[in-house]
């Protein structure tokens, strides 16, 4: 009897590991090893040493690209917030039917591939597109170039990432107890002060979630900046791609990758300690 009990206990401790083993081995082989290889290449290609990091961290080109990446990510996050907060607010105040309609629109936008949305902005902002046509009709004879600028890539990224922000804020707003707002009003809070002291703090978790998510995705964004941005104002991911595809500079590309990875992990790490990573996606 005693023997079978201990056997049962042992089985209990082994069972989860048996279930986890295939995936663990798989991730070790096809996720961890390539990642470690990037780290190794960054200190061995073309010759051993820290020369790549020295270049990436002090070279003027790289500094410019990293600063640009941060600036863009910050700008996009801010714009997503400015765009997302009012929309989430609109959704939580209109009728249920209208809110469902807007939700459907956002879900469709979310599920439409990055590439499709990037392409759509190319059409919208192109020389023969509706925006230029509208500007000309309004009497602007020579509209400024819109496509392949910082403006076009930022706008498209805001459009692509806004659903993340909106959904995070909307989820929080929906849960706000209306009686809280009413009681604040009954105590004399209204307008700006009601917003600042009651509504904003209550929606802060959604803002934090959405902002971290948008910022982190934006830091590593490749497709949209490459297709829509100005070649003179590259972002980190685009430059990494160049190093690998065009210059075959694996060492430099890897060193940049590791810097990008470390920054991303630090931000997510801080987030994880405070809120837990699994909360990030709702």
């Amino acid at each position: 009897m005693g023997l079978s009990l201990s056997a049962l206990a042992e089985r209990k401790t082994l069972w989860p590991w048996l279930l986890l083993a295939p995936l663990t081995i798989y991730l070790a082989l096809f996720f961890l090893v390539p990642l470690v290889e990037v780290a190794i290449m960054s200190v061995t290609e073309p010759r051993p040493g820290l020369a790549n990091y020295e270049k990436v961290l002090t070279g003027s080109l790289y500094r410019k690209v990293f600063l640009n990446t941060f600036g863009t990510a910050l700008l996009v996050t801010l714009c997503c917030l400015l765009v997302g907060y009012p929309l989430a607010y609109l959704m939580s105040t209109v009728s249920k039917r209208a809110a469902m309609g807007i939700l459907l629109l956002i879900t469709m936008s979310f599920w439409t591939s990055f590439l499709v949305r990037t392409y759509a902005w190319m059409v919208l902002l192109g020389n023969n597109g509706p925006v230029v046509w509208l500007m000309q009709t309004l009497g602007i004879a020579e509209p400024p170039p819109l496509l392949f600028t910082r403006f076009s890539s930022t706008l498209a990224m805001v459009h692509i990432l806004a659903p993340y922000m909106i959904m995070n804020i909307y989820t929080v707003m929906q849960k706000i107890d209306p009686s809280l707002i009413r009681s604040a009003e009954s105590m004399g809070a209204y307008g700006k002060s009601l917003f600042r002291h009651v509504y904003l703090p209550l929606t802060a978790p959604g803002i934090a979630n959405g902002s971290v998510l948008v910022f982190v995705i934006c830091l590593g964004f490749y497709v949209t900046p490459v297709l829509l941005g100005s070649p003179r104002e590259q972002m980190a991911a685009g430059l990494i791609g160049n190093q690998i595809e065009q210059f075959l500079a694996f060492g430099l590309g890897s060193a940049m990758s590791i810097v990008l990875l470390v920054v991303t992990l630090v931000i997510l790490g801080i987030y994880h300690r405070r809120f837990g990573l699994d909360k990030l996606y709702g």
Partner: protein
Amino acid sequence: MNTLMRWIGIAVVIFIAAPLVIVVPMSFSTAASLQFPPPGYSWGYYQQFFSDPSWLRPAWNSIYIATMNTLLTMALVVPATFALVRHKFWGKSFANLMMMMPMAVPHIVMAVGYYSYFGELKLVHSKLGVILAHSCLSVPITFLVLSANLKGFDLTLERAARSLGATPGQVFRHITLPILKPGLAISALFAFIQSFDETVVAIFISGRDAETLPRKMFDSIREEADPVIAVISTLLFAVVFAGLIAPSLIKGLRRMAGGTPSK
């Protein structure tokens, strides 16, 4: 304050809708380049897409790769999710973190890693390489969706079956699996979409032979902005629309037909 926010909200609705709306008329355009409004309408670019192997091949590649990716990901993630949701064991929080890691690494970083690693394994430019890479990237979202479903599972149902004399295998087959079916289907769908949409890693490792649809679209947009892309965009868009609308339509149909479907 409130009215201002509402007006901005309405403007944002237009901002979000505009790019989704513009693609559809563009796909029926007769213009050789991007021009809006189109000078005329035709099915020309649809015919071009459905008769051009250089577009059809990547489309099939993508469907094949996404299907294989789904099978592989589910085979790995389903058991692991059971272990993580239903068992307490040493190292669990670490295992949880491990499942989420592929989501935390920028895809461009993984692309660099796969480019060099699969180069050594002679897997670059092969479908197998893309499938293996995509399966790693699909783990977090598949796990999140499935574990949310599994956490909501009422364990007393299994216990009841056990107390009535069912073996663990019978419980799994007749109780656990049927209840979990919708959750499994949705997480499989997420795995499929993750692979079907993945662009960055595919750009670097799929080559000519395993070229996926997103890679072909990326190259095409970068080089010439071929209007055929509007066709693909409209088709993908229609699939998403159908996917979102279909469930509620089916629900409505069932309600109209009266009663719930028998299992």
